[in-house]
């Protein structure tokens, strides 16, 4: 397979992370925030794969595996929380959940 400059891989990863961050900051609905977080995680995963490929080590892929595990656990717990929130306040507005204010 042909070689891709490491810098370019990292650039793509950074773009994905920034898009995800943008989404977290932009959206008010909790679900969309979660989606954006998944984008961020994928960006990070891509960076790891790129690094592993550059150094010809399996470590990068192993770490991406762990990232996926973490993402799965996070999504599970997070969605359960969203269900609870929806039951209590009947909306998924992140701005409405400010009782820790001050």
């Amino acid at each position, binding site marked *: 397979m042909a070689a891709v400059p490491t810098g370019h891989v990292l650039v793509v990863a950074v773009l994905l992370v920034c898009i995800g961050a943008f989404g*977290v*900051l932009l959206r008010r609905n909790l679900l969309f925030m979660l989606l954006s977080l998944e984008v961020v995680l994928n960006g990070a995963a891509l960076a790891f794969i790129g690094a592993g490929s550059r150094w010809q080590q399996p470590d990068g892929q192993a770490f991406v595996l762990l990232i996926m595990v973490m993402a799965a656990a996070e999504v599970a717990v997070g969605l359960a929380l969203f269900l609870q929130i929806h039951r209590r306040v009947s909306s998924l507005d*992140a*701005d409405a*959940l*400010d*009782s*820790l*204010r*001050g």
Partner: protein
Amino acid sequence: MPVWTMVAAPLAAGVLLGLSGARLDKRLVAVVACLAVLISFAAAVGNSVPLMAAAFPGLGIAEPDAALSRTAAGVPHLTESLYTWVEVDGLTVDVAFKLDPLAALMVLVVSGVGFLIHLYAAAYMADDPDYGRFFCYMNLFVAAMLTLVLADNLLLLYLGWEGVGVCSYLLIGFWYQDPANGAAARKAFIVTRVGDVALLVAILLLAVQLGTLQLDALASGALAAWPNGGFEVTLVALLLLAGAVGKSAQLPLQVWLPDAMAGPTPVSALLHAATMVTAGVYLIARTHELFLLAPAVLAMVATLGGLTAFFAACSALVQNDIKRVLAYSTISQIGYMFAALGVAGFAAALFHFMTHAFFKALLFLSAGNVTHCVGETDLRRLGGLRRSRALPGTAALAAVGAGSLAGLPLITSGFYSKDAILWATLQPPFLRPGLLLLLLITAGLTSLYAFRWYFMIFSGPAGPATERELHRPRDLMLYPLIALAAGSLLAGFLEVPATLGGYHALSEFLAPVFAAAEQRHGLGSNATLFSVEQAHRAELILQAVSAALAVLGMMLAYHWFIVRPPWQRWLAQTPVVASVAEIMRIGWGADAMYSTFVAQPYRALARRLRHEPIDDGIGALTGAVRLSHYLLVLTQSGRVRTYAAGMVLGALVLLLSWLWG
């Protein structure tokens, strides 16, 4: 009787009356109180006899000289040391009483006049429900005053000093139900406190520098350790002067005495005329060695005395309250005594003290008779009481007092004592012709206001308050006055100047006390200023002048205040005269100045500090913390998105610092 009896008797009586006086019968209270002071007087007389025997061997009193001791300077004295009071490293102070000629003169006057006033007060205060309390305070006062005079060391003297201050406070505010009396008492106490603090500092300085407070040791120690005019002795003398000025109501601490007239008349007579206010004079006389070592301060004493005498006499001239005239008169006369002390005329000052005690007490008690019988204290509403059925005796006695105050020639003791002071101002090395002029003018004013006082009460047309039927004063309110009048007329003959006969009993009696100092500083001989005949003539001229002033003052007073010719009426109405009179009436604005420059700034400062600005400074710290809290809390919006934005911003900043750092 031992010397300490003089203090113990009134002290015991005072304590007894204090504990039980309210429950005792009034007659018993009066007997106990008067008896206590009589015992003091008897002890004073008894213990003074050996001293007089020592001074006048020709009297033939067969008292063994062994009862007396003599100091190194030859001063005869009776000393009793009761016990050691303070014993610390570097200072030992005993409770010791010493009776030397100076103290003897003081105790005789204090206990004698005090006894007469106690008798008077027994009748005057007879209707007062707090009879027991009154005599308790009076006796305690006498005890404290005698302690002051008999003290062998400055610490015991200070005890007496404070004691008379406390009793003065208690007695001025005797009728405490009226808050004005309490305010007057507080004013007296606080103003004299200024002087008391200075005196205390002086005592501490002496204790530290000379290691003793015993009076004889102080004198010799000061002579040995301190040069003439040196810094330490000047400082100590200045502080002692401040103490004396406070207690004796001289400039600038004279503002309390006119207001102290709020107390009962016997109190005014005893404390604020005859005895307590002369404590300053006694202090300076006692520590004369220190003052002679500080000639600058001595000159200040004379100047203060002269100025006070003049300004107070002006104020006395325009007062309308029967007792306030006498209060300002007291300030003025004590000014005379200070002036005499300032020119080293110690005997003259003490002579005037004695005569002043007689005639001023007499004047105050006559005023007491007037207020007791008529109930009026405003001079403008009195008049013609001489012709009333109730007060002719009082009028005659008051005339004696007024004449003695004015210094009517030859017959009144005031003439002789005032003349002694005036002559002393011409003695080198403290020659003060300017002071003499001031004192002569003041003498004229004195006669003027004394007779104004007399004529406005007792002569002229009957005033609005005197038209009703008056009751006679009780006997006990007249007999003491007779005794005091006798003193006012006869006491002068104790010290007759050379021009009129030359009988110097008093100064010879006091001579040993001041002899050493006078010898050292070259005093007591006026040979260097005049030749003997010149001195004789000068003294005669001086006496003639002062006599003329006294008589002229009397005539002018009569003409001005009783006859009131048209030119007087016109002159009194002119704005210049009226405004000057008003300024003099308010004591030359002294009270106003104290209020503006001392009292009000202090109160403003207290009000400012009430909110504790130092706490505010520390409060600013907590305020700043709280402010930063409020600012920082704004970042805690509780919203996840805000926190996420913060994180991204942080990452941004970190990256920036990495790239450019």
